[in-house]
């Protein structure tokens, strides 16, 4: 009898549709995903370039994105998020 594997079951039940790399923006309590191609940036773009592209997209002053953190993921996606403040 095949060994029961919940993860295999999960994979069977979950759709996996993937396109090009995406920037996930979490800003002022709202989230959105923007394809990097639409922002004319790539995973290797500098933080400054990414913030400027996001500011243009959101139509906000780039200074409002000061203090945000940009994470680069192994799959080519990016995340722009607020800085985390950890308690002790």
């Amino acid at each position, binding site marked *: 009898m095949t060994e*029961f594997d919940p993860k295999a079951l999960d994979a069977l*039940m*979950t*759709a996996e549709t993937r396109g090009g790399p995406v920037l996930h923006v*979490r800003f002022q309590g709202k*989230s959105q995903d923007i394809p990097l191609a639409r922002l004319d940036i790539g995973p290797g773009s500098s933080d400054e370039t990414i913030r400027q592209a996001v500011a243009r997209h959101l139509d906000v002053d780039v200074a409002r994105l000061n203090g945000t953190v940009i994470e680069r993921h192994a799959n080519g996606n990016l*995340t722009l998020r607020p800085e985390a403040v950890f*308690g*002790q």
Partner: protein
Amino acid sequence: MTTPREPGPDPLAIVAKLAAQERELAEKPVLAPVVAGGRVRVRLSGIVYQMELEDPAFEGWAILSMVAPGRARVVDKPTRSLVTAYLKLMPRVRLILLDQHQRRWWGIAAQQSDKRFRIDKAVPLCLVGQAASFDTVYARFDGSAFWWEGPDRRRDPGVARGLRKARQDDVSPESLHVRGMVPQERLAYQLLWLLAHPEALTSKELGAILPGQGLENRQAGRLTRALDHAGAQLDSFWNTEQGSTVVRFYVDGREHVVEVRTDDLTVLSSGICLSDMDQDFDLTSLVDVLREHEGQDDGF
């Protein structure tokens, strides 16, 4: 022009509050279920404390005493009536057992009409007593885990026996006939049969066999995409009556349980102390934060 940032919470007050809670935890023995690996979580005023047992092999119900920050010792075995009273504090659900994986039972909801929870996937069930595949059992849900309560003695055990025999004989779902079987028991059988026969699985068949739970499962797909963006893996999730979703997932092999708002995945409870700023993040952006927190290795 920059927007002035509002003053954040007083860090000293947060530290004092956490210290007081830790003292409270150290002074009082606590009753808790413990699973293999020796980790136990205690929630105090919304903060989840994770402790490791001195005996990592221990599994079961225990009365624990915190012996040092992050470490606990089993000091007594609770009576059955105490465990029953504890379990009664949590909502009850009926599950149909599927099979064991790494010594843990998994099951699906025995009925889909339960308005309190929407259990869309197979869920792990902890501290299971004597049981077998397709048994209908009672469990209690604490917000992140399902705990075994006992078998549903009103359910005809002949149905589960019939399903086990059919599985042993490798009967296909189309040919399955067990007297008294209900739709969720048939679904449990189909799931196990499909896992044993992946060659029979096409997306079309999956959609037909698992209506509402296959490729069209929008919520599962949304959570998976949200986590996959940052390289995390969805394990399971449960919706609560309060309009939130509890999500269990893995980041770099480490398990996390997080409560998010169902509609926009804003974090309600991250399981770590984010200075009451949990809602600044959503599920996707939290993945990075959890990595950063792990990197700090600051215990609790």
